[in-house]
């Protein structure tokens, strides 16, 4: 043993010692203090700004949370009567469009085929010069046109002034809203003489019938409607929801009855329903006096295929007793005579039943800047095609990308010598423009908005512009100055909008005399005045016009375009909206075409097969998805799908063939619950009564180890499945609040989406015999924060444990990634980081500094937004009081439009969550494994009695 001497040992020892000592170390960090600290900005503390969401026309108020000058989260403004403090998924995702990596970072000018960066001064000078050339002796630019999205506020006003100063033409400025409910407008024009949209107050409706209107997702003002409708639903007299259409949307999934008709037959159902109501034989009381006249005008009866007179009678009977009710429809993309006729029939029924003025309010939609009719848009393109348009200003309008190919927009736009485009991200149309002028994002700009009468919302910047962008209106004012346009005096858009909104606010009775009062208004970001619905007389002469219209759906397959709450199919949508799977089909990162199981079987198609779709307008290819909640006569395509442009509008006859190719469709979610009764339904009559014991029932299940002590709080949640619409606003809010990475299509295919909270959809009672019986159950699934959590004991390093406040905690920096906890979680709510997260510049600016960004190889999960709990506790401690009930809201609870989620302290007997958990419908998920969850689900109610 001479080999292993003392020396040798020493060598080994010191060598290892050296290795151990050379641990990697931080490079010295630099601290750079400010020269002059800004006031009221405290690093490490959030600031809140009020502004308005411009994601859609609804105009929900927004509270933007900002940290160190960056907006990190959007939430609804509680002072706003429209959103009522909630935001939809798209509203949440506005944040990602602000930080979109492909946003324009400055103005561009065309250089041959390229759009190249140019300084603002030059860009403006060039545009001014070109306009100057085009100006005639009379100072007008004949053939100047403007295409803009709907701008009910100062922006719109500036545009109008600019255009009218440059051209005498009457309809020189066209408002382009491809998703606008044109049919409803047209119908209202015909029936009541005004091209307006109704405002809905569903809180009073005792029955709702929707003819394909996804009023809980995207239709009209979804957040408001979800809130009011679900508020009514939780009342004693639960309103019934009937869905009429070939496809159950998520709104339809919330319906009690489904009249499953061929595409296009909705009109026939509406007319037959109307006929039943006005038929004296049925003795419906309190009808409008015009009933008789309407009856006289009705066409001869024709029952739509698959609908029995009994069903109509049943629905009619329901509507005759359940007053007031609300009939909604048609869907956004319903078009042509059929769509308008349907809208008219629906509105007429509302009129007859006296719903107008009660649940369906007319005369409230904003007078400002109503979207132009389809014809006007096509007319403008026609002019362009004839070469009459010399200069075209586009403001956030993308006719090329949004109109069907049949509109031949490209051909038209190529004929326009000068196109000046305003927007954030280059779209199809921008690629034809001479000037692409980078506009501020809504969160960077001033402005004012009148989404409807009686409500004024202030658009106020929540952060200074990220890039070298300018407000389009400011640019127009500058141009007006250089061109010395008559009648435009303002130089500064901010001043203009300020004086404008102050005038409007005064008109609404706001008190603005002192600067203090002004600041209050700005702090609230909204002025609410009184506005009354107008009673509109029916123009009887209009009746024959539409009651004559007949749509006879062909026997072949027909195209149905439907709206989705997210935008999996929209290549231009922000990552969150693409990655979070479509709640109904489970598709992410792709467009798709839905077939009913029967049709799929007939064509021998399986999910993921690539289909060739052909209409008279054109052809395209889409991967197939089998949807049990679809009529076999329909092929359904999401309206965001770019492929839809080739196929044209709704109601077209489609030929479907297999291409033999398959497409790796990112598809998640098993279709059925396999009879495990996870998302429960209680029939109306069997609903257990409120019993105090029930909430604690589960705690009787014996446990080997004693349950945890919760000295101060025990955070808990209740989820009302009768209210949850499956809109997934909560999911996106969770992504935003907790720095969840977007992992992309391949990861989605591999089943590696990172969502902490998911909407688990399952198709129930699918039977080929009675497809109309198909029901969809949704179950929001997140960490149940069990008292006896199976994940806790199996972690070898205590990375997960039960906190004194009842949270099931995951300590990311302690986790070594055995994934045992995920295997042992019966709810599959633990998420593993399969790779390091990637946040493409500048998306990382959105990251919430109060939450760690997790690295590869660690497990993560829902924390009940512990950072928000800590924040609320901090505020309470600062004010020397206890946390109030409802003060702590995780992101999902905060943003739920339907207010289906309730969060609170289970140890506070007064807390809402406690009474909810003691409700008769309350149950715990997988009670049999005795995990003692902190979340109680309230079983969905079966439909109320007619």
């Amino acid at each position, binding site marked *: 043993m001479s080999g292993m001497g003392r*020396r040798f040992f*020493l*060598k080994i*020892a*010191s*060598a290892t*010692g*050296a*290795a151990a*000592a*050379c*641990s990697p*170390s*931080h490079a*010295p*960090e*630099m*601290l*750079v*203090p*400010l*020269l*002059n*600290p800004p006031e009221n900005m*405290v*690093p*490490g*503390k959030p600031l809140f700004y009020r502004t308005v969401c411009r994601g859609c026309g609804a105009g929900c108020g927004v509270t933007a949370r900002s940290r160190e000058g960056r907006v990190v989260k959007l939430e609804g403004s509680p002072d706003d009567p429209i959103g009522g403090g909630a935001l939809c998924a798209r509203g949440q995702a506005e944040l990602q469009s602000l930080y979109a990596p492909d946003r324009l970072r400055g103005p561009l000018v065309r250089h041959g085929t390229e759009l190249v960066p140019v300084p603002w001064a030059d860009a403006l000078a060039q545009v001014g010069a070109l306009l100057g050339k085009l100006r005639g002796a009379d100072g007008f630019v004949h053939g100047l046109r403007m295409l803009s999205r709907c701008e009910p506020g100062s922006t719109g006003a500036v545009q109008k002034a600019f255009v009218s100063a440059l051209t005498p033409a009457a309809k020189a400025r066209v408002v382009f809203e491809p998703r606008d409910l044109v049919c409803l407008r047209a119908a209202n024009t015909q029936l009541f003489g005004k091209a307006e949209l109704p405002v809905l107050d569903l809180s009073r409706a005792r029955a709702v019938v929707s003819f394909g209107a996804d009023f809980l997702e995207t239709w009209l003002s979804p957040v408001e409607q979800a809130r009011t409708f679900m508020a009514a639903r939780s009342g004693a007299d639960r309103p019934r929801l009937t869905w009429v259409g070939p496809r159950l949307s998520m709104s339809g999934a919330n319906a009690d009855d489904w009249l499953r008709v061929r595409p296009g037959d909705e009109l026939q159902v509406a007319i037959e329903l109307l006929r039943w109501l006005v038929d004296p034989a049925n003795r419906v009381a309190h009808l409008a006096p015009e009933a008789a006249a309407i009856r006289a005008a009705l066409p001869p009866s024709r029952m739509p295929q698959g609908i029995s007179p009994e069903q109509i009678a049943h629905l009619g009977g329901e509507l005759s007793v359940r007053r007031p009710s609300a009939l909604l429809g048609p869907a956004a993309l319903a078009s042509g005579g059929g769509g308008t006729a349907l809208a008219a029939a629906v509105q007429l029924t509302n009129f007859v039943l006296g719903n107008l003025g009660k649940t369906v309010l007319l005369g409230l939609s904003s007078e400002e800047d109503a979207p132009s009719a389809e014809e006007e848009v096509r007319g403008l393109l026609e002019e362009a095609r004839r070469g009459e348009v010399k200069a075209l200003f586009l403001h956030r309008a993308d006719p090329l990308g949004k109109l069907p190919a049949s509109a031949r927009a490209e051909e038209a736009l190529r004929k326009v010598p000068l196109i000046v485009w305003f927007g954030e991200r280059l779209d199809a149309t921008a690629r034809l423009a001479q000037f692409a002028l980078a506009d501020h994002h809504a969160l960077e700009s001033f402005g004012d908005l009148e989404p409807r009468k009686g409500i004024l919302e202030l658009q106020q910047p929540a952060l200074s512009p990220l890039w070298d962008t300018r407000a389009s209106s400011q640019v127009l004012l500058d141009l007006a100055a250089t061109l010395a346009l008559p009648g435009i005096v303002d130089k500064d858009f901010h001043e203009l909008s300020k004086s404008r909104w102050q005038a409007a606010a005064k008109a609404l009775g706001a008190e603005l005399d002192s600067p203090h009062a002004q600041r209050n208004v700005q702090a609230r970001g909204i002025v609410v005045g009184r506005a009354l619905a107008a009673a509109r007389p029916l123009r009887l002469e209009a009746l024959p016009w539409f009651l004559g219209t007949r749509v006879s759906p062909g026997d072949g397959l027909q195209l149905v375009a439907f709206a989705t709450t997210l935008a999996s199919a929209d290549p231009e949508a922000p990552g969150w909206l693409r990655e979070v799977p479509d709640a109904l089909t489970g598709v992410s990162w792709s467009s798709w075409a839905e077939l009913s199981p029967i049709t799929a079987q007939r064509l021998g198609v399986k999910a993921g097969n690539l289909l060739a779709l052909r209409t008279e307008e054109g052809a395209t290819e889409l991967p197939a998805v089998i949807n049990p909640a679809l009529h076999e006569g329909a092929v359904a395509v999401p309206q965001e799908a770019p492929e839809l442009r080739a196929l044209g509008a709704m109601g077209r006859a489609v030929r479907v063939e297999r291409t033999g190719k398959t497409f790796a469709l990112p598809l998640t979610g098993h279709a059925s619950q396999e009879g495990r009764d996870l998302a429960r339904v209680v029939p109306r009559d069997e609903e257990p009564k409120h019993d105090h014991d029930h909430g604690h029932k589960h705690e009787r299940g014996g446990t080997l180890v004693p349950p945890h002590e919760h000295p101060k709080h025990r955070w808990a949640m209740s989820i009302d499945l009768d209210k949850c619409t499956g809109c997934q606003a909560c999911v996106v809010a969770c992504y935003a609040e907790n720095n969840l990475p977007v992992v992309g299509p391949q990861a989605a295919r591999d089943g590696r989406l990172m969502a902490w909270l998911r909407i688990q959809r399952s198709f129930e009672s699918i039977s080929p015999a009675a497809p109309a019986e198909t029901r969809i159950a949704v179950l929001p699934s997140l960490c149940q924060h069990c008292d006896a959590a199976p994940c806790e004991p199996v972690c070898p390093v205590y990375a997960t*444990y039960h*906190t*004194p*406040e009842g*949270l099931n*905690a995951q*300590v*990311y*920096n*302690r986790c070594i990634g055995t994934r045992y906890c995920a295997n042992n979680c019966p709810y599959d709510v633990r998420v593993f980081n399969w790779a390091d997260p990637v946040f493409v510049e500048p998306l990382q600016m959105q990251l919430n500094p*109060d*939450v*760690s960004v997790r690295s590869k190889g660690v497990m993560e999960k829902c*924390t009940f937004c*512990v*950072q928000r709990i*800590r924040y609320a506790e*901090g505020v309470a*401690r600062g004010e020397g009081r206890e946390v109030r009930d409802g003060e702590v809201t995780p992101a999902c609870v905060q943003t739920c439009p339907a207010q289906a989620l309730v969060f609170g302290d289970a140890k506070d007997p007064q807390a809402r969550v406690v009474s909810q958990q003691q409700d008769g419908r309350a149950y715990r998920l997988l009670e049999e494994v005795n995990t003692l969850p902190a979340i109680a689900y309230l079983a969905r109610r079966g439909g109320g009695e007619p």
Partner: protein
Amino acid sequence: MRRLAPLALFLGALGCQAAASPTTAEAPVKFSHKTHAGENQIGCGVCHPYARHSPNAGLAPASVCIGCHKFVSKEKPDVQKLAAEFTAGRPLTWTRLNRVPDHVFFSHERHLAIGVDCKACHGDVASMAMDQKVHELQMGFCMDCHREKQATIDCLACHK
């Protein structure tokens, strides 16, 4: 001699380890807590304005320095340098001395609210002519204090 080689290697390694984490930091201008906090009794909050109501303590904005040094000891070269930088609109760059590990959400506000003395972590800076790192702010250091003061030792108190 040969037998000392490994030992030297070991010590060398320790040395570079020590060098890796600075115990003192060179400053852009000669700044002495002793003068400011010690002799002139300037409260910590004056130059670390956010400590009492935010997780971050904050570092004296140049404007604050100038606030006094417009009048006080203008003749000193470092003060003149400071003034020059300020008028040029260039912020001073300091080297970070005290640093909590990653994954820790430490709040000065909380700790000051319950009356923890700055000294507890930063040492008696009032007597330091040259700033010194007194404590390695490692988890064990926090835990000892939390245990002793019966403060929470819930992981989520600091790790989120």
